[in-house]
């Protein structure tokens, strides 16, 4: 693509080694260092094969060179010489800026990731179904009947039940109106889930029931209609996508059983078997959602974010299998999706034309742009021959369209037009296809200005699927999106069981949601806030007063003790061992994710072996001893102080005053990236530093950009990060404003108003 070539040219910056100090440094480097480190610091095999890069300042670097280099005679490069070499290598290849300059990145053609694939297919099918409205009410609509069947004339009570968790015993649910020997209840509504994954549903009852969930037919997910009066809890697992509402219906009855009770339960991803909470239930209906069940191979995340950078045979098979699954779904629901009368006998005369038109719309929505005449023929019309039944033709259309690169590679079309713009917005903000309003904008081209695009982005960000994507980002940023066993030693940490762990995860996501979706959406609040969301169990576990009930409430802590996500027990438990804390894991996490510092992998892998140490030592003493060598301290001078600052929190995130019998010492001196020394007395000092550190901000912005756009931020120009940083500061660190800004900037980077070069690429296919 021509545009990309221009972009790359623009990326090559002016840099000045005209500076005489650096020139002298270059000469010295070539003479004394290049033999082992390579001409460009790339490393030399059998000498020093690690490339030279890092985030030390020039001053810091000069000190290391002065002290240690060349390793056969450190005195040969000292003082001003060391400063000159440091200045040269910092500028030429050591710093992050130099690396970015030397390896200019480009916007690669990428395919849909597995998550984008699933979301796009769900969007595609949903675009032909009715759209549920946002619903403020919670719970399920309930109808109670004085009969074992749901006979309309026997309905005695209609209300909204917050949960389905009833034990009627031998009594009637409504004494006086409903008999106790035989009655029926029907609950209907929808279920909104926030996370993508496998959900296990179950109904616990001794009576009869049928549970329908995301059912596109009359087949129940679980059929327990016939029962023997014994308590059972049959289960069924389905995959659901986060940010969607799914239709749910539970039909329940009692007939002559001794007692009556019913519980609607689930086990969500990362959760435990529990009564489905009120917050996820809606009393209004929703249409079924097409959720791909085909498993996809994991996507590349070698750069720290998930992206569709490579195709493999396994991916090719998954695409085919997913296309077959979708084709089957569309063919089965053709009459519904194409808006045809249900009975074939009432088929309109122009049915073939109607189905063809439906197919054309479907293909164009999958491709995120209108079809050309040639496309219409190729993708749709040629498949409708006289001897081909409609459902077969439709299946072929879907199979072809969903395996076409035009669906799989959203950026494929070279036209930088309004369709490209809207498809980028939907891809960046919720991984899916443009909704009705975006399609209208694509068609009529009314998204001309950056402000108009921002407004659209802000609108889309309110959509549940966009919120789900933002939530996924935070879990990814905090390294909580992988499967990680958080269970601890039961003897040392009684009460930290699966249910407590699941509750803490929910507590963390509640805190993040509370910050991100509040008016201020303040990134600094994420680090500095001194609230935790607790229910009775968690408050009890943390020894924090007495609370009652399962409902989470915001509880304020002493700001000296706790600080935002950094001290959230879920995170602290994630970065800890089975029996003890891990200052190294906590420190590495804070350095990389929270402070945006770059750390190299350790020169040699040393495992922390607790048994190896004198048991009377504190964790801090053990880690200090383990990492005391100069080679280790290159990075551990950054890692250890951060990790030690959290030593007041045990392996479950509970506050402690002692490690074994020694009092906790959380205080250290810490070298900031700009060369200052900072005394850290606890997590709040780290949080305050991060909240005001441009390096930390830029790290956060870069993570967020890459999560949303799935491209390296530098590919959009060397200044992109600066621009976004300025906006971020100006908005008082408003996260949502940042998301809107990222989406707008990335979506418009090559739009005609931004660049004069795109005139050659007038859309031809409209």
């Amino acid at each position, binding site marked *: *693509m021509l545009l*990309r*070539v221009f972009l790359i040219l623009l990326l090559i910056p002016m840099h000045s080694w005209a500076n005489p100090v650096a020139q002298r440094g270059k000469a010295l480097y070539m003479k004394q260092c290049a033999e082992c480190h390579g001409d460009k610091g790339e490393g030399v095999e059998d000498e020093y094969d690690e490339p030279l890069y890092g985030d030390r300042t020039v001053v810091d670097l000069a000190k290391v060179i002065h002290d240690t280099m060349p390793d056969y005679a450190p005195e040969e490069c000292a003082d001003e010489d060391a400063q000159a070499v440091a200045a040269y290598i910092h500028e030429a290849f050591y710093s992050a800026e130099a690396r970015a300059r030397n390896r200019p990145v*480009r916007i*690669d*053609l990428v*395919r849909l990731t597995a998550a984008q694939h699933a979301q796009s297919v769900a969007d595609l099918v949903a675009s032909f179904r009715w759209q549920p409205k946002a619903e403020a009410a919670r719970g399920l609509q309930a109808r109670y009947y004085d009969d*074992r069947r749901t006979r309309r004339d026997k309905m005695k009570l209609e209300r909204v039940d917050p949960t389905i968790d009833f034990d009627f015993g031998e009594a009637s649910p409504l004494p006086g109106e409903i008999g106790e020997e035989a009655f029926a209840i029907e609950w209907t509504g929808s279920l909104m889930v926030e996370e993508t994954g496998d959900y296990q549903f179950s109904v616990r009852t001794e*009576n*009869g029931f049928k549970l329908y969930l995301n059912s596109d037919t*009359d087949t129940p997910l679980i*059929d327990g*209609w*016939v*029962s*023997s*009066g014994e308590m059972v809890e049959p289960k069924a697992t389905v995959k659901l996508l986060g940010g969607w509402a799914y239709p749910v219906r539970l039909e329940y*009855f*009692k*007939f*002559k*059983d001794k007692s009556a009770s019913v519980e609607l339960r689930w086990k969500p991803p990362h959760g435990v078997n529990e009564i489905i909470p009120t917050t996820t239930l809606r009393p209004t209906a929703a249409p079924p959602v097409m959720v791909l069940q085909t498993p996809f191979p994991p996507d590349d995340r070698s750069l720290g974010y998930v992206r569709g950078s*490579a*195709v493999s*045979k396994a991916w*090719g*098979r998954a695409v*085919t*299998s997913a296309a*077959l699954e979708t*084709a089957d779904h569309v063919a089965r629901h053709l009459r519904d999706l194409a808006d045809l009368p249900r009975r*074939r006998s009432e088929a309109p005369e122009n049915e073939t034309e109607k189905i063809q038109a439906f197919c054309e719309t479907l293909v164009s929505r999958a491709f995120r742009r209108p079809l050309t005449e040639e496309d219409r023929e*190729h*993708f749709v019309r*040629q498949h409708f021959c006289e*001897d081909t*039944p409609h459902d*077969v033709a439709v*299946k*072929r259309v879907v*199979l*072809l369209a969903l*395996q*076409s*690169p*035009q669906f*799989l*590679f959203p950026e*494929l*079309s*070279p036209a930088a037009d309004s369709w490209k713009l809207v498809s980028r917005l939907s891809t960046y903000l919720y991984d899916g296809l443009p909704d009705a309003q975006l399609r209208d904008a694509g068609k009529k081209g009314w998204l001309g200005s950056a402000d108009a695009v921002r407004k659209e982005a802000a609108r889309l960000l309110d959509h549940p699927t966009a919120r789900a994507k933002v939530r996924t980002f935070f879990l990814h940023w905090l390294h909580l999106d992988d499967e990680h066993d958080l269970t601890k030693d039961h003897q040392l940490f009684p009460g930290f069981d699966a249910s407590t762990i699941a509750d803490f995860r929910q507590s963390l996501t509640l805190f993040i949601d509370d910050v991100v979706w509040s008016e201020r959406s303040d990134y600094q609040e994420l680090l500095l806030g001194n609230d935790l969301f607790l229910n009775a169990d968690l408050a009890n576990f943390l020894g924090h007063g007495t609370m009652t009930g399962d409902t989470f409430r915001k509880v304020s802590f002493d700001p000296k003790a706790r600080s935002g996500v950094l001290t959230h027990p879920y995170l602290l438990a994630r970065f800890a061992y089975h029996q003890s804390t891990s200052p190294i894991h906590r420190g590495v996490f804070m350095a990389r994710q929270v402070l945006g510092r770059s750390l190299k992998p350790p020169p040699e892998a040393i495992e922390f072996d607790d048994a190896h140490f004198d048991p009377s030592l504190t964790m801090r003493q053990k880690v200090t001893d383990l990492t005391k060598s100069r080679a280790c301290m290159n990075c551990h001078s950054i890692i250890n102080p951060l990790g030690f600052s959290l030593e007041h929190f045990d392996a479950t995130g509970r506050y402690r005053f002692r490690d074994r019998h020694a009092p906790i010492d959380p205080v250290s001196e810490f070298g900031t990236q700009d060369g200052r020394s900072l005394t850290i007395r606890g997590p709040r000092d780290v949080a305050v530093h991060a909240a005001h550190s441009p390096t930390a901000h830029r790290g956060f912005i870069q993570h967020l950009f890459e999560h949303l756009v799935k491209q390296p931020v530098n590919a959009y120009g060397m200044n992109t990060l600066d621009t976004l940083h300025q906006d971020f500061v100006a908005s008082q660190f408003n996260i949502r404003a940042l998301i809107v800004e990222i989406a707008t900037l990335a979506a418009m980077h090559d739009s005609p108003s931004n660049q004069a070069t795109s005139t050659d690429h007038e859309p031809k296919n409209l």
Partner: protein
Amino acid sequence: MNLRTSNRRQFLRDIGLSTAALPFFSGLPSLRAAQASGKKQRLVIMISPNGTVPKAFWPDATGTDFDFKEILKPLESYRDRMLVLHGLSNKVRGDGDSHMRGMSCLLTGKELFPGNIQGGSHTPAGWCSGISIDQEIKNHYQSREESRTRFGSLEFGVGVPDRADPWTRMVYSGPNKPVGAIDDPYQMFNKLYGQVQDREHLGSILDDLQTDLKRLKGMVSAEDRQLLEDHADFVRAMETDLQAAEEQKLHHAAPELEPGVSDTNDNIPEISRMQIDLMVNAFANDMARVSTLQYTNSVGQARMRWLGINEGHHGLSHEPDDNEDAQKKLVKINTWFAEQLAYLVTKLSNTPEPGADGSMLDHTTIVWTNELGKGNSHTLRNIPFVLVGDGFGFEMGRSLKFDDEAHNRLWMAFAHGAQHHVESFGNPKLCQGGALDLA
């Protein structure tokens, strides 16, 4: 080669089940060579509801020279392949009315659990507390390498209502574990041949996909082109896989189903035929050795308008013996069921046994039975049992009369016929005397 021609489609349609590499091609049966040891055996259990009309059903004579009453007439040409067993009763008692026990205890020989489902009389009940004989024999076959098949058993239905309760379920994989019949031939076709069909659709669009890829490759920069070339390679590999699938063919091609036969009362004759075709085809391709064929359900109300009968079957079955019109109609209805059996028998008899001598009927035992002995009395005595075919090596060509023996003993004989030597089946108290001696 132009993939879009009908030849290409025909070619793909003829592609057999294979070991092709794509995952959605996996799990297909491989064709077994003839069994090295032991004769291949199959079991079919066919059930129709609401009892029979005894006087138009049971032969008067016993022994080899028995007579054919009106209902069994369609089977007369198979006299020497048949065994008509009179005097067997479903003696299971306990919870549930006769219809519920007639259906859910017929193949299990065991009581229903107490429960919340109320019949027309008697106490309410739940699911059956035992496994059904077809599943027992299926498990036996599946446990041994030489008789293991892809599905083990297939449960066919015709006009079975879309609800699960003791009236609609006769197959149980264990206590409290009813197995529903598939009464939509297209759904059954999908289960049996869906992967073949998917491949057929896939094959028909591969050329188009390559064309699309070729065209789009021109649109992207050199750096990005590799990704699309890789993608095109997979599509080519898929085509090779599909062609490799040609190497292995189905012994019998999948039947061509007439499209668009909806699951309605009036289509029952058509659906019955389609299901039997699918069953014989699945047997020929050795996808299963056990099958059930369930017509409607206990208390089934099929309206056999194609026989000139507008009343529902169950309603008619309640009419007293002296209602001649009703009797005539019930004879007609039961004769129609016998015709379905005859269609199945003929089909098996006309199909050579793959990899062995003789016909498929020589390797198959079919039993046609009923939930009740007689409709208007709801009796569970003298349940009809008509056996056809030589799967289990019984001595055929006879009419036998027993003196009110528990039908559990018949299922024991079936298990023994399948080389599965059980000591009892269902309720052990109903197994006194052991397996019926039918050899």
